[in-house]
């Protein structure tokens, strides 16, 4: 018999568990697009991003999720990008943003290998 649902559930801890997280994507990206290493989270990309205008979407946050190995967040966010490339124009460090998005999508579509 199915137990009655009282609307309570165990909430997973919010912390980033760095020891357990899988950062394969980050190491993969760093080889293919080394400019990912130098992002310093200034937020220029997000300020100019048309996708960020109406939905919460932020390129530099994706970069942080990738560096920390927060896979769920990456998968949830990565397809919101429209590849317009405005972020690439404003980035003061010259991060190749579109390439990061494309490589990440390829990586996730190929099953993350």
């Amino acid at each position, binding site marked *: 018999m199915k137990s009655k649902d009282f609307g309570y559930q165990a909430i997973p801890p*919010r*912390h*980033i*568990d*760095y*020891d357990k997280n899988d950062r394969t994507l980050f190491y993969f990206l*760093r080889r293919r697009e*080394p*400019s990912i*290493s*130098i992002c*310093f*989270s200034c937020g220029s990309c997000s300020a100019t991003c048309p996708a960020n205008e109406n939905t919460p979407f932020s390129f*530099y*946050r994706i970069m*942080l*999720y990738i*560096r*920390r190995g*927060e896979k769920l967040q990456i998968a949830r966010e990565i397809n919101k990008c429209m590849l317009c490339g405005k972020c690439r124009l404003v980035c003061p*460090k010259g991060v190749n943003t579109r390439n990061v998005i494309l490589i990440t999508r390829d990586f996730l579509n190929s099953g993350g290998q």
Partner: protein
Amino acid sequence: MNKRVLIVGAGIAGMEAAAGLSSLNYEVLLFEKDEKPGGHLKNWERLFPTQRLGSEVLEFLEKGIGETVKLISNTNIISAEKSDKNFKVVSDKGDVWYGDALLITTGYDLFEARKKEEYGHGIYDNVFTSAELESLFLNKKELLTHQNKKPARIGFIHCVGSRDKKVGNVYCSKVCCVTAVKQAIEVREKLPECEVYCFYMDLRMYGMHFEELYNEAQEKWGVTFIRGRLSETAENIDKSLQIKVEDTLLGRPLRMTVDMLVLMVGFVPSKSTTMLGKEVGIDFNSNGFLKTMDEHTSTNITGKPGVFVAGTCTSPQTITNTIIDGRSAALTIHEWLSKSGTV
């Protein structure tokens, strides 16, 4: 007869000021409590941002004081006062010297990391200070944990004892950020397999070529920078360390295990600076360093005529700035002695 200048402290500022005054034909007595001159520079193997050897800078300073400056080492000056026309300084052994002007270059001490008890220095085996790490480099010792294992992951903690009202120091110590970047690179050079993380609040890369070094640390050496201040350290059963920080760029707490933790300890006024400042009766600024007459225009002048200051007894400074400040003090003293002649 040539006028005589008394300089207390043969660190970088004292040595460079002595060299300047000596070349202006003053008789210089340079007092040093240690056996050798050089101050903290003696304990540093390589310098930011170029990774050049500290000993090269020390050689330059030693050449400056040469034969003409009278270096009086192993001498701890415990009191200084104006007596008639002169200044009188007295050592702890009771020896007395007189001079026409007094320059205080008694520098800084490193913040005592144990005061941040929650970081675990002196409690856990594998918590080191930046100075202890540098000492390993200087003495060509292998970088190993206390259990003689090669560390697989090292964390650098910025702002230890700086920008922290809880320990009474609200100021930034200026050099620790770029020192962490320098040492992080050195760890990666020596141990290519070891992951390196820097935990920072702000990265203050204000100097020429500092930003490039930071960039190089990320791009070439794969050092990861995480914005967030360490809350506490705990030791695991295998003596590795569990650290907790808030990843403030993601707005979430983060936990990580490291094999070694390096605390970037900041500057505090040295004991000699505090003691001598009180002894001579000059003012202190709100951070406990010696107060200068004007922060922009008169950095070597104190409220007491004939008493001058230079270097890190007045504020945290890089080596470059300390050398400039020492040189500037020499000229300031020269101007004062030429105009007034006597105290």
